[in-house]
Every structure is written in C-alpha cells, then in structure tokens.
C-alpha cells in the first residue's frame, strides 16, 4: 500500500536507518575493529544529524495519535526501543561489537514495526485532512534543534 504523503519523509529516513542497522550488524559480525569503529561513528553521526529529531517528531506527533487509537502496547514498545537506542547512542565510550549488533537489531526491528504496524495504523486512524495537518506539523518540527530535544528528553525521563 502506498504511504500517506505526510509520512513519506519519515519513511525515507527509515530507509537510511535500515541501511545503517544492517551495516552495523555486518560490521559487528565481521569482528574487524576498524569496521566496528566506523559503524559506531556512522550511527553517532546519524543520531546527531537525523535520528534524534526523528524520534522526537514521532514521540510528539505520532505516538499520541496511536495512543488515542488504543495502541498503548505498541506505543510503549516503540518508546522502550527509542529509550534503549537513545541511551546507547549517548554513551560513545561503550563501542563493543556485541552492543553494536544489538543496536543494529533493535533499530532494524523498530523500523520494521513502525513501517508495518504503526504507520498503517496511523493511516487508518486519520482522515485526509488530519494527515495533511500532521504533515505540516512534522515539517515545522524539523527545524528544532537537537539541544532542545535532549533537554526535553531529560525532562521526560525524570517525570
């Protein structure tokens, strides 16, 4: 089924995330220290340039809609995956192969869950007008800075 235009930018970022996840798993399994370090670096770069904002957009704009639609278990799981990846990518000193493979696995599974379960559910829950408004709100959010995200995230974790 064709993705709703409002969700296309996030789906495109999912493609990048899938590529990174698979590269991370391959690097971890290779046992090659240089490849492992490169894969960690790619993930940290992606976290700073795209993933942190992507997580924030989903948490602020998508997950509340899913909750209203009764998808509490799905949202709880997606949030736990976000938190696990966030914690891991905020700890650049821990770069073992085992954690890299685990991070790749969580990221790949998370993207699949969003593409196969969360996004189709959103498309079913929202009418065309609501989807268009959601697309505009997502576009506005993209200008927010990572510092703002980190601040909000810390506030969220202490509540």
């Amino acid at each position, binding site marked *: 089924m064709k993705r709703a235009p409002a969700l296309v930018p996030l789906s495109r970022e999912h493609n990048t995330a899938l590529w990174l996840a698979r590269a991370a798993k391959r690097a971890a399994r290779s046992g090659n220290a240089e490849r492992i370090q490169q894969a960690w670096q790619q993930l940290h770069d992606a976290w700073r340039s795209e993933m942190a904002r992507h997580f924030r957009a989903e948490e602020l704009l998508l997950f509340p809609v899913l909750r209203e639609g009764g998808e509490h278990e799905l949202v709880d799981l997606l949030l736990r995956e976000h938190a696990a990846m966030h914690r891991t990518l905020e700890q650049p000193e821990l770069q073992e192969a085992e954690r890299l*493979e685990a991070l790749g696995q969580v990221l790949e599974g998370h993207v699949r869950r969003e593409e196969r379960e969360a996004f189709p559910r959103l498309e079913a829950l929202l009418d065309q007008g609501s989807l268009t408004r959601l697309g505009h709100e997502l576009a506005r959010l993209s200008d927010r800075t990572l510092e703002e995200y980190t601040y909000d995230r810390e506030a969220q974790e202490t509540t």
Partner: protein
Amino acid sequence: MSRPDIEELRRNVDQIDQQLVELIGARMQHVDQILALKCLAGLPRRCEEREREILERIRAASRQQGLDPELVEALFKRFFNQASSYPKATA
C-alpha cells in the same frame, strides 16, 4: 482412501508446514529484538522464571491439543538454548 484424497491432505500438510516455518521465523525475530534490548540494557540473556512460565503454558496447550507435551517442550527448549548464543557476533 483414494489417491486424490491423500494428495489433498498432503497439500494441507505442506501449507501448515509453511505456516509453521513462518511462525517460527516471526517468533525468532521477536526474541532477537528482546535479546538485543536486554544486551543494550546490560541484562542477562535468559530468564529462568520466564522460561518456566512458557513451558507450563505450552505443556497445558499441548495436552489440550492431544499432543505429546514432551515433544513440544523439547522444541521450545531448543528455542531457549538458541538465546544463549546471542548475539551472533560472539557466536
């Protein structure tokens, strides 16, 4: 039983085999995700209490279906043992 009947039943068995393999694959994907989250959180791979609960449940379900509980239990113990070798990087 005529030959066409047997062929029909074999087709059903083949379809169920396919579904079984797909379900086992789906189970493995979920388990891999749990193991990966545990790894990131620094938690142990296996949880004996959880494994005991699963075995109790599948033994009861096996009896309800008229299956040998030991056969099904052996299959699930193989699943549990696979978790010990996660992640594949260190297998």
